[in-house]
């Protein structure tokens, strides 16, 4: 009996149209919300380790190549905007007293091109050093910090300059 019932039973067909509706809608939604695969990359940053040995001014002689290079970013709003480059604790040559090494452009923006050129001078003195300690003012924007890191990573001929960054606090 059951044998016969099986052979006369028809396979009912699955109506795929509603499934298709949902599928197409979901896929379109996800493709659009991912905005054509926005590319994201990373920048490696460290903080100075507590207790790490730092070269002090005066000890520089035994380690000629590895002086500490510091880059202070002054805030635009305080009127002391711009970059102060310090090598081994002393301001870079040519820095006016109490003024940034790379002041703002006449229309009040940070001057990244001049910064890159000045850092090339520093790099010439220390070919092997790839580490800069960046110390921004608390009010400096994150965007400025990232652009600064971009400006010192490679020089104008696209060679590696200072890709390693330590962040410090004032």
């Amino acid at each position: 009996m059951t044998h016969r019932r099986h052979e006369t039973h028809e396979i009912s067909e699955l109506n795929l149209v509603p499934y298709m509706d949902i599928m197409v809608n979901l896929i379109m939604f996800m493709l659009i919300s991912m905005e054509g695969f926005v590319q994201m990359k990373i920048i490696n940053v460290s903080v100075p380790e507590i207790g790490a040995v730092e070269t002090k001014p005066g000890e520089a002689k035994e380690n000629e190549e590895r002086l500490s290079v510091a880059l202070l970013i002054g805030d635009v709003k305080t009127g002391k905007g711009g970059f102060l480059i310090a090598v081994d604790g002393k301001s870079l040559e040519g820095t006016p007293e109490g003024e940034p090494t790379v002041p703002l452009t006449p229309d009040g923006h940070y001057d990244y091109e001049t910064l890159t050129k000045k850092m090339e001078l520093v790099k010439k003195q220390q070919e092997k050093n790839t580490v800069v300690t960046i110390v921004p003012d608390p009010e400096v924007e994150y965007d400025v910090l990232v652009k600064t890191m971009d400006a010192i990573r490679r020089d104008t001929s696209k060679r590696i300059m200072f890709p390693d960054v330590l962040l410090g606090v004032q």
Partner: protein
Amino acid sequence: MAPSSGRPNQEEMDPVVEQKKKARRMRRRIRNKLPEAGELNITAMMDILTIILVFLLKNYNTDPAANLTKDLRPPVSTSDLPIKEAITVTITRKDISVDDKKVLDLVDGRVPESYLNVAGQPLLIGALRDALLSRVEHHRQLEARGGVPFTGNMLLVGDRKLDYRLISQVLYSAGQAQLSNFKFVTLTQQ
């Protein structure tokens, strides 16, 4: 083959012939059910769409680009290093989250005073450190069970207009939670 006439006789009762008749009936039934020319067989397309959907769902879940809003626009950078999965701290203009779970709200782009200055350390955001410590603990347990070694990596996804004070507070708190390799997530130039 003699056509089936429905008239029972000795031959048709034979099991082998009976089976042949069944096969003939099934074939006719299937033949009658063949789609006409012009009708689309969408079963194959359903397979592809389902697989695409599963892939997109997986990407949508793990891709940091999926939760970009006007409050979360990372800065543009020329950096070229690829993103690798790690504990993620997301700082929008309105709040801070760890691995997609909100930790605290920001007021005016700053951490409210009540969260700061924990244990006498002015840069420390206690709630953030605790949230990070629980994630670190989770990862260390995974490592103990024979999983991936703990790296101390942390991804920082931050809006471009945040000030450095906030970044330094977050990095300090993360340092207190045993994380030391920070990776700033940026957009590439389009």
